[in-house]
């Protein structure tokens, strides 16, 4: 048996040059029967190795090359599950005991956690080899004996490298030592790349790792190209007479048992009082929840809940539901706003437990889209929390289940296109300017085609060193997708029943969070359950609003007419998910009057449906302008709520169940395959299967075929209805807040910015349009965040660019003693850096002390120079008399306000030129509603969020909103105009535009089809 026991994968982070797939494929090709991956101090390759090896029919051995406290290396292999658990614990300790430093394994933990491990003495940087090579035979012997005493026959002397100076001597000495101590020798390859031809990739990666350039000399670089996966013959050619050691490697390979069961379900355990059964508790909680959620728990509801509970318990997910319920319960008790999202809203159980806010039964949502016996995939419950308190929730989870059982899922930052060019270009010695030029000009290409880039004219003009450029591009192609470093997943937390540290090593990520060494996919493959605790700023804004209003968010009336009127007007800026121009245009035509319409809206404005031209037919059917038809009468029940259009994934599943008699689980599988089917052939096969079963179920062949074509057309971009419903819920409620409490809600949006679709400057224009006054920030009246004072929004001091938390706190604290009487008083009581004082004056926050901001700046200079306000220079012009200082002009003030606050306090820039514009016949956005359709109008304003969505025809159309002092007007810019003057739309800084075009009306909305577009010159 040929076994390779010392192999590095890319998870050795820049010390392994071949992907796991490539290593495994190469190993299989040369008849290797067991392959160990031994990365530096981590087990990140474990799951991927298991999967790849199983496919190739090779035995996977899990190990690591650990660094000991003296910096020497040691190879540890897990012989069995116990050994794997110990290895995880060892590595966790090595990482957590040395935060922000290189992980080190201590000898004492080695002694303590040695069970089940096979220990190889390591490469040349191993203690024994190092001592032997440096002529310290006795010390080497002592070191080897230490291990021999602890590990006995599980300790092996390793010869890992050949063809290096001293290799022959090292081989001789190792043999001698083994003979004296009665130890076995083992031959390994210290593999860092799959084949000898790949060594250059490794060499370059070493340069990247050591931050050196390729011409530099660096001891970490390898002397030769011998660290590849060698065949038996090659190994023996390099180490003649070591046949026995090679056999030993094989024996070790044979003796290592499986350490991980990928099919195991390591579900978390929800702590319950002794004697209580999780299933019973869950049943009870669901029962209570149902009574709270439904006025009358009908037979229908009972059956559905029973059905769900049955599947949940049969799959063993009752603890998981309890656990999520508990987290949500915690958030509720603490008043942390939250909302479930994603497919979990397909579950009535989740609704009864308060995890989601969508009535799955009432909406007829399919539980099987979320969970089914057939799919038996791990469920994924995502919950959004108020962005400010998400960490509190995470902390609660850590606290409740203990650090041993909880960790955040990691992500791997990988080498991709431009960043790879930058890293590798630097290592290859390209000057910074050239790398920059190259990275910027590099078009997006697949890694396999990167060499074609060489012939591009825009790269040729750079006159780069051609050989090195080829090398650079080749290397980028080779390392594309390799991990560079480990990061933290946004919200994914895993909770396990057995200690997590026995399933994965844990380490500290940059943010100070303990993370697993496995990413999302690995965690899923391992059968660990992940809980996504996400943060959503909209919820923070909602929370701020309802707190001020003392409003019961859950009691917001469901069918508020005024709210639907607002939605129908299309003026939905600030409404969650429905505020983009495309959504506003849809709303103004759709005439939504119930939540279903909003659910459909959320699903409709997506690249897929837009490209598929689903929007227009949907609107036409909704308004009764087009008949709603069904290919089969059985479809009516399923598609009625979307007017006969397949919009949701749940509908695809239901059609397959009803028409072709699929079981719900099978139907979901069908949907997933249809979604991902890339080729015509796959689709054809699926179609045949569907049609056959449909015919067997009594459907005419023609109709069956028609239905399948229809489903296939939409399956690829169908949206999860449960998710759309969750979002629509929040959308409706935020629309209610915009309609009835605009001041409070817009203040909250501003305080939580950046959020939503629009910048703060646009939000306050919208607030003013709705009749809400906006007051400048004030050192005496503003709080940290924006709030409502006498019906107006008072901008908070936290909005000021450059304002620090400490500065803000000291200001508010100082103010508790009474208002600031003068600038001098303010500066004396609050200590801030000079630029911040200056900013406070320039944004108008110090207008409390006098309206002339320039005069205040002079005063500030004097105060900061520790002199009374009587100072100043005798300059003649702005003389000793303060009254002589001329204030900034309107435009200057606005410029500072936009720079510092992102919005105009003194007014809107267009106000200053409005009189002139009127003379040119330019109207305001507000005046448009009084003008006739089809009229040519002139409009001026600032372009906001221009974007080029994908269109069905492939032609370019730009949608942009034009902001003037009265609000936003939507513009449509077609390709010809875009080519002529599109550059003015995408400038930085944003320039005001003068626009001429035709007034269009669709539904209640007004928009302009642009005919002429030019910069506004005043």
């Amino acid at each position: 048996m040929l076994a390779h026991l010392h192999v590095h994968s890319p998870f050795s982070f820049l010390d392994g040059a071949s992907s796991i797939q490539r290593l495994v494929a190469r190993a299989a090709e040369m008849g290797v029967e067991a392959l160990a991956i031994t990365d530096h101090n981590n087990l990140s390759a474990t799951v991927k190795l298991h999967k790849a090896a199983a496919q190739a029919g090779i035995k996977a051995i899990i190990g690591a090359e650990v660094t000991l406290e003296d910096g020497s290396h040691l190879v540890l292999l897990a012989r069995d599950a116990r050994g794997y658990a110990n290895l995880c614990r060892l590595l966790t300790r090595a990482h957590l005991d040395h935060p922000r430093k290189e992980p080190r394994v201590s000898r004492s933990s080695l002694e303590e956690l040695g069970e089940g491990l096979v220990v190889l003495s390591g490469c040349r940087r191993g203690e024994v080899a190092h001592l032997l090579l440096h002529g310290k035979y006795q010390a080497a012997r002592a070191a080897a004996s230490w291990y021999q005493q602890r590990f006995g026959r599980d300790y092996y002397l390793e010869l890992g490298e050949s063809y290096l100076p001293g290799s022959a001597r090292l081989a001789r000495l190792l043999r001698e030592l083994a003979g004296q101590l009665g130890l076995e020798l083992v031959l390994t390859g210290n593999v860092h790349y799959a084949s000898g031809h790949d060594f250059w990739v490794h060499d370059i990666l070493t340069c990247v790792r050591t931050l050196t350039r390729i011409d530099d000399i660096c001891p970490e670089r390898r002397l030769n190209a011998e660290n590849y996966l060698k065949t038996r013959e090659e190994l023996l050619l390099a180490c003649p007479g070591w046949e026995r050691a090679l056999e030993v490697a094989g024996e070790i390979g044979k003796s290592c048992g499986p350490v991980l069961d990928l099919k195991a379900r390591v579900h978390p355990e929800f702590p319950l009082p002794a004697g209580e059964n999780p299933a019973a508790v869950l049943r009870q909680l669901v029962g209570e929840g149902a009574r709270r959620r439904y006025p009358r728990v009908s037979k229908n509801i009972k059956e559905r809940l029973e059905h769900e509970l049955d599947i949940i318990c049969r799959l063993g997910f009752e603890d998981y539901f309890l656990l999520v319920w508990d987290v949500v319960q915690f958030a509720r008790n603490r008043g942390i706003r939250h909302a479930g999202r994603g497919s979990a809203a397909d579950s009535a159980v989740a609704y009864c437990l308060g995890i989601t806010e969508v009535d799955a039964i009432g909406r007829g949502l399919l539980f099987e889209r979320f969970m089914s016996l057939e799919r038996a995939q791990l469920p994924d419950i995502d919950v959004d929390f108020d962005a400010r308190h998400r960490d509190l929730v995470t902390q609660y989870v850590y606290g409740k289940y203990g650090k041993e059982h909880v960790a955040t899922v990691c992500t791997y930052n990988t080498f991709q296109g431009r960043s790879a060019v930058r890293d590798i270009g630097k290592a290859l010695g390209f000057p910074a300017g050239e790398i920059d030029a190259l990275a910027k000009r590099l078009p997006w290409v697949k890694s396999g085609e990167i060499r074609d880039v060489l012939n591009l004219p825009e790269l040729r003009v750079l006159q780069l060193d051609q050989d090195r450029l080829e090398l650079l591009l080749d290397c980028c192609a080779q390392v594309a997708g390799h991990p560079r470093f480990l990061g933290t997943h946004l919200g994914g937390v895993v909770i396990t029943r057995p200690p997590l540290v026995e399933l994965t090593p844990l380490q500290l990520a940059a943010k100070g969070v303990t993370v697993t060494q496995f990413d999302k996919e690995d965690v899923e493959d391992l059968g660990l359950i992940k809980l996504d605790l996400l943060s959503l700023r909209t919820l923070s804004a909602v929370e701020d609003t309802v707190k001020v209003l003392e409003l019961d968010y859950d009691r917001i009336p469901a069918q508020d007419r005024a709210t639907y009127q607002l939605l129908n007007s299309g003026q939905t800026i600030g409404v969650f998910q429905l505020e983009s121009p495309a959504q506003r245009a849809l709303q103004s035509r759709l005439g939504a009057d119930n939540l279903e319409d909003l659910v459909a809206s959320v699903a409709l404005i997506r690249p897929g449906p837009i490209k598929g031209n689903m929007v227009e037919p949907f609107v036409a059917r909704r308004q009764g302008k087009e008949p709603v038809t069904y290919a089969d009468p059985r479809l009516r029940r399923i598609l009625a709520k979307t007017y006969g259009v397949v919009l949701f994934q749940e509908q695809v599943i239901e059609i397959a169940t009803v028409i072709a008699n699929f079981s719900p689980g099978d139907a979901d599988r069908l949907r997933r395959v249809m979604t991902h089917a890339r080729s015509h052939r796959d689709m054809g096969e699926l179609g045949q299967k569907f049609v056959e079963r449909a015919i067997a179920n009594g459907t005419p062949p023609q109709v069956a075929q028609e239905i399948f074509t229809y489903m296939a057309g939409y399956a690829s971009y169908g949206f999860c209805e449960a998710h759309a419903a969750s979002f629509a819920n929040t959308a409706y409620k935020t629309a209610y807040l915009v309609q009835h409490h605009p001041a409070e809600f817009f203040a909250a949006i501003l305080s939580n910015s950046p959020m939503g679709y629009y910048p703060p400057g646009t939000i306050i224009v919208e607030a003013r349009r709705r009749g809400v006054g906006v007051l400048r920030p004030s050192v005496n009246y503003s709080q940290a965040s924006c709030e409502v004072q006498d019906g107006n929004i008072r901008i908070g001091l936290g909005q000021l660019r450059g304002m620090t938390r400490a500065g803000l706190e000291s200001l508010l604290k100082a103010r508790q003693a009474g208002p600031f009487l003068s600038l001098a008083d303010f500066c004396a009581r609050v200590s801030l850096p000079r630029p911040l004082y200056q900013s406070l004056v320039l944004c108008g926050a110090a207008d409390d002390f006098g309206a002339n901001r320039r005069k205040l700046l002079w005063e500030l200079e004097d105060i900061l120079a520790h002199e009374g306000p009587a100072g100043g220079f005798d300059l003649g012009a702005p003389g000793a008399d303060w009254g002589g200082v001329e204030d900034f002009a309107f435009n200057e003030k606005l410029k500072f306000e936009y720079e510092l606050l992102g919005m105009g306090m003194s007014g809107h820039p267009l106000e200053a030129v409005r009189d002139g514009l009127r003379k040119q016949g330019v109207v305001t956005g507000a005046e448009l509603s009084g003008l006739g359709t089809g009229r040519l109008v002139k409009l001026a304003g600032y372009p906001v969020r221009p974007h080029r969505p994908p269109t069905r025809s492939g032609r370019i159309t730009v949608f942009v909103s034009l902001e003037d002092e009265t609000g936003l007007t939507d513009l449509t810019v077609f390709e010809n105009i875009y080519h002529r003057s599109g550059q003015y739309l995408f400038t930085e800084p944003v320039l005001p535009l003068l626009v001429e075009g035709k007034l269009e009306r669709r539904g209640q909305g007004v928009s302009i089809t642009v005919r002429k577009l030019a910069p506004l010159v005043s």
Partner: protein
Amino acid sequence: MAKLVNQPVLVVTDGKRRPRRFFWIRHWIDVQSILEEWKDTGRWWDGETEKTFYRLAGNGGAVYEIFSDRRLNQWNLYRVLD
């Protein structure tokens, strides 16, 4: 004392292309034994090819390091240690 020579030399090799004797300062030096053998890829990015080094015990008692470039079929005496 070690002396860096790095000069081309004539070498007679055996069937495995390992050195048997070489010509250095008007003498043929016979290889008594090969002490070490290693490989060095050098400045591969500049087009340098891999070199195989041999540390040899010569018949005069000195140790020599010579290397061959198998692709170019060339030999150099690299260092002399006496």
